[in-house]
């Protein structure tokens, strides 16, 4: 399989006066269309790793390659373009825009990347809403929905651009176990249907075990790396 993401010798320090090393010489690669989970205790550096992979944060040394292209020397605008074109994010908190309806929030990535809002785009947004099971509430303002619904809107939004890669940082951290189960089944379905590569941080071992690959980060190093 072709690698879509490569992490090469990544080190990350935080702080200017007192330097704390969070990541130690990480080398990882992620295959296209794979479903990966990252586990680890809080403070292990897993979120930092995901943020670096997603170009939201810069490594202190080392580089990240996305589809063979190094992101090291890209400027802020180039990184923004790359994110808009290839990456989708699902965070622990949904960060929906409260001024807009659920459907408008889902269409937002298209607007952000200045793509025309055609009938097909709206049809696709509706399809995604259907996929995440939010047909009835798609015209509600983002604030007039339950937490689980908002999180599912955020998932639909991450899919709107048809990104090659979706990075999720504890996407179900705020949800109950039933909804968590549903959300993961949904992500898995999307992974199969749209061939999207997933990297998901979770602290739920049961969920992690359902992935193709489990990476455990411990004290800033890759501790365990199991492929199925």
């Amino acid at each position: 399989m072709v690698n879509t993401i490569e992490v090469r010798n990544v080190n990350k320090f935080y702080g200017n006066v007192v330097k704390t090393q969070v990541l130690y010489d990480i080398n990882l690669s992620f295959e296209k269309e794979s479903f990966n989970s990252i586990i680890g205790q809080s403070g292990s550096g897993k979120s930092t790793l995901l943020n670096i992979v997603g170009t939201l944060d810069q490594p202190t040394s080392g580089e990240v390659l996305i589809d063979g292209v190094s992101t090291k020397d890209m400027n802020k605008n180039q990184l923004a373009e790359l994110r808009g074109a290839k990456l989708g994010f699902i965070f622990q908190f949904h960060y929906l825009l409260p001024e807009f309806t659920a459907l408008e929030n889902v269409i937002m990535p298209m607007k952000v990347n200045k793509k025309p809002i055609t009938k097909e785009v709206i049809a696709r947004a509706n399809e995604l809403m259907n996929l995440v099971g939010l047909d009835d509430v798609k015209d509600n303002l983002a604030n007039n929905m339950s937490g689980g619904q908002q999180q599912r809107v955020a998932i639909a939004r991450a899919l709107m651009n048809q990104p090659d890669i979706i990075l999720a940082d504890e996407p179900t951290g705020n949800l109950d176990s039933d909804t968590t189960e549903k959300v993961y089944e949904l992500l898995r379905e999307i992974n199969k249907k749209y061939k999207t590569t997933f990297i998901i941080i979770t602290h739920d071992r049961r969920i992690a075990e359902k992935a193709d690959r489990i990476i455990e980060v411990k004290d800033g190093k890759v501790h365990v790396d199991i492929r199925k």
Partner: protein
Amino acid sequence: MIQVFVTISVVLGIASVLAITVIQKSRQIGILKAMGVKDRTASLIFLSQGFILGIFGAIGGVLLGLLLTFAFTTFALDPDGNPVIPLLIDPQFIGISALVAIVSASLASVIPARKSTKISIIEVIKNG
């Protein structure tokens, strides 16, 4: 001279109000940046907000000014029944005032707009 100081204080007032909106909206700006919004586009949000604020302020100010002028000339009369202050409407002066309002509001939004380019996605995600 007083106009200059009024303008300065208005500019500072608008700038501080907009600076607060930048902080209130930093979450949303952060997520938009994660979606691929460039810093320039993000700052345009605040520039246009300042511009729109300026237009509404100018319209409101001109209307209120005219209303007060008419009220004075109608109700403030001397014993002979003539207005104390004669009615004098200078369209050019009104135009310039409106322009000053719009320009100063737009200028005031430059500071918060610059501020919005400095919002880092990481900070937003970490601090919720």
